């Protein structure tokens, strides 16, 4: 009897553990299995109120695909300040379907990620290092929080990094008059999910420090779904026929910053980037370098 009893206990424990694991690990079921969570509404509307200070806790800014830990670009100068943390990718299936010729450009981007060329200020090197606006979706998973302010007809997202921002009118979509770093966003509600359709990119932003990039033909469809009072699920479908052979998808949870004193702060980084950008231009000049 003893044998049977113990085996049964162990089996039950294992089963329970598996059930618990499914509940806690299954990110998608909350989204796909319907309204498990009912977020508080924005007064005057039937929509959940997404207002808050949010942040992604993934390492996608280093590489949206799987990546092991690695030294940064200047370990002799920076120690591990500049190192890359290990991280699992945010790309569904971990594959980015580059066209063959486009993949070469990605690798070139990576090699030149910290190159500054005064004659090609915004076409060579990672825009992040230069304090340029991160574009969409990269703005979402920069290691900085961002503030959503949701009103009845418009939603403003203010990103801490480079103080980038975008305004998302809800309802009838309009076309981008010209191209922008942060694109041109149009929003609508799909049940409790905020869907943002973004086009009008200038093609200069990157996805990450690994050199993953897109062209001005980029089309992003983002979905923000409340999962709990303090969690949103973020999903984005990426389409760019000049660079990729098919659409692909990324997803990650967003976490509310719940510290009592959490608030949006400035990261106006221009003056922090000037020596990097212009230092070579004043090298050797008699008065250069007031720093």
């Amino acid at each position: 009897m003893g044998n049977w009893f113990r085996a049964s206990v162990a089996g039950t424990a294992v089963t329970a553990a598996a059930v618990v694991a499914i509940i806690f690990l299954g990110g998608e079921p909350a989204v796909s299995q319907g309204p498990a969570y009912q977020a508080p509404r924005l007064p005057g509307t039937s929509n959940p109120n997404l207002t808050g200070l949010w942040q992604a806790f993934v390492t996608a800014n280093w590489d949206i695909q799987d990546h092991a830990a690695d030294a940064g670009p200047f370990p002799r100068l920076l120690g591990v300040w500049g190192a890359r943390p290990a991280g699992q990718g945010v790309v569904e299936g971990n594959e980015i379907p580059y066209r063959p010729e486009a993949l070469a450009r990605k690798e070139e981007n990576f090699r030149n990620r910290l190159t500054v060329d005064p004659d090609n200020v915004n076409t060579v090197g990672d825009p992040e290092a230069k304090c340029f606006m991160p574009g969409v979706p990269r703005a979402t998973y920069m290691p900085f929080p961002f503030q959503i302010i949701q009103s009845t007809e418009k939603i403003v997202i203010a990103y801490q990094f480079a103080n980038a921002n975008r305004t998302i009118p809800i309802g009838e979509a309009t076309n981008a008059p010209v191209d922008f770093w942060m694109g041109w966003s149009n929003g609508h509600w799909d049940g409790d999910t905020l869907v943002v359709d973004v086009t009008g990119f200038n093609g200069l932003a990157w996805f990450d420090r690994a050199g993953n990039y897109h062209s001005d033909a980029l089309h992003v469809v983002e979905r923000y779904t409340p999962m709990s009072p303090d969690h949103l699920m973020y999903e984005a479908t990426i389409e760019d026929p000049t660079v990729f052979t098919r659409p692909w998808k990324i997803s990650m949870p967003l976490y509310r910053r719940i510290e009592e004193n959490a608030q949006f702060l400035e990261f106006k980084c221009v003056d922090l980037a000037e020596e990097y950008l212009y230092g070579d231009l004043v090298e050797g000049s008699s008065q250069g370098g007031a720093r």
Partner: protein
Amino acid sequence: MSHRCLTVMGAVFAVVVLAPTFAAAQPTETPASLRTPWGHPDLQGIWNNSTLTRLQRPEELGDKEFLTEEEAAGVEQETIARNELLSNRPAERTTAADQLDSRADGTPGFYNNLWLDRGTTVVATRRTSLIVDPPNGRLPSLTPEAHTRVTSAEADRIEDVRRGRLPATSWEELDLSDRCIWYRGIPSLPTGYNNNYHIVQTPDHVAILQEHIHDVRVIPLDGRAHIAPTIRQYAGDSRGHWEGDTLVVETTGFNNRAIIRGVDGNLSEALHVVERFTRNEADLIDYEFTVVDPKTWTSAWQGSLPMTRTEGPMFEYACHEGNYGLYNILAGSRAEEKAAGGAGK
């Protein structure tokens, strides 16, 4: 026993690729007093795997698979006596020779013996090696690729650098343990000191803190898939499950710097290890392991050793934080080069 339990687990867990040949060796089951509140065998506590038994059977022992009881007692007594002798011996100057790490009598040349903790017992089976398979107690033959790897001129040079016979031109030439990056490897075999492990369990995780390099292995038991093979790590990526009362841990995803302490040379990313932890007595975990690396050995090998319960606490290991040694090695190397250059003038 427990085909029911196995059925449940079979539904939940992936099939382990490696044949668990030790399964038959399980002597008894874990008593109820050694179980967690949720019914798993309780592996928790601090454990030490020091032993006088070596990984490989000394060649001079030939076919001899086991020591006799008298031989085992003799080895243990000899060790105790020698420890006693060394601790009572007056201080003496060590003279520089080709090899400072050990002296002619086998005693350490680098520190007083009392710093060390090699254990004073052989394994309970009195086997002449930790390796149980191949039957000769020796590691399998190297593949031609691995043979080249360990016998190349570059490997020889690196060995000379690590032995202090050549100046180090870079920290990268030094051993991962000199650099405080990675010490034991997996499976974790005993060395001269710090052979301590702290195991903590929850229903769905086991964590093993190794004293050396303060590495913690966090091992999920919930049946999740391994992380993608694109992510390689020093300790690889471990997944555990219970087979009866034995914790089975399978590890893959090692990076190309994989090592196993006690085994010469660098291993490959193809390294694949299965470990088995069974606690049937209050003070003993039976630790068994199977190692496969087709780019290093022509066949798999298996071994076993005991982990004995020990009193805590385990202390902090701050190797990197206090690694004056690396500065000394590099500064010494520069001084040597300078001296050599000056002599040439």
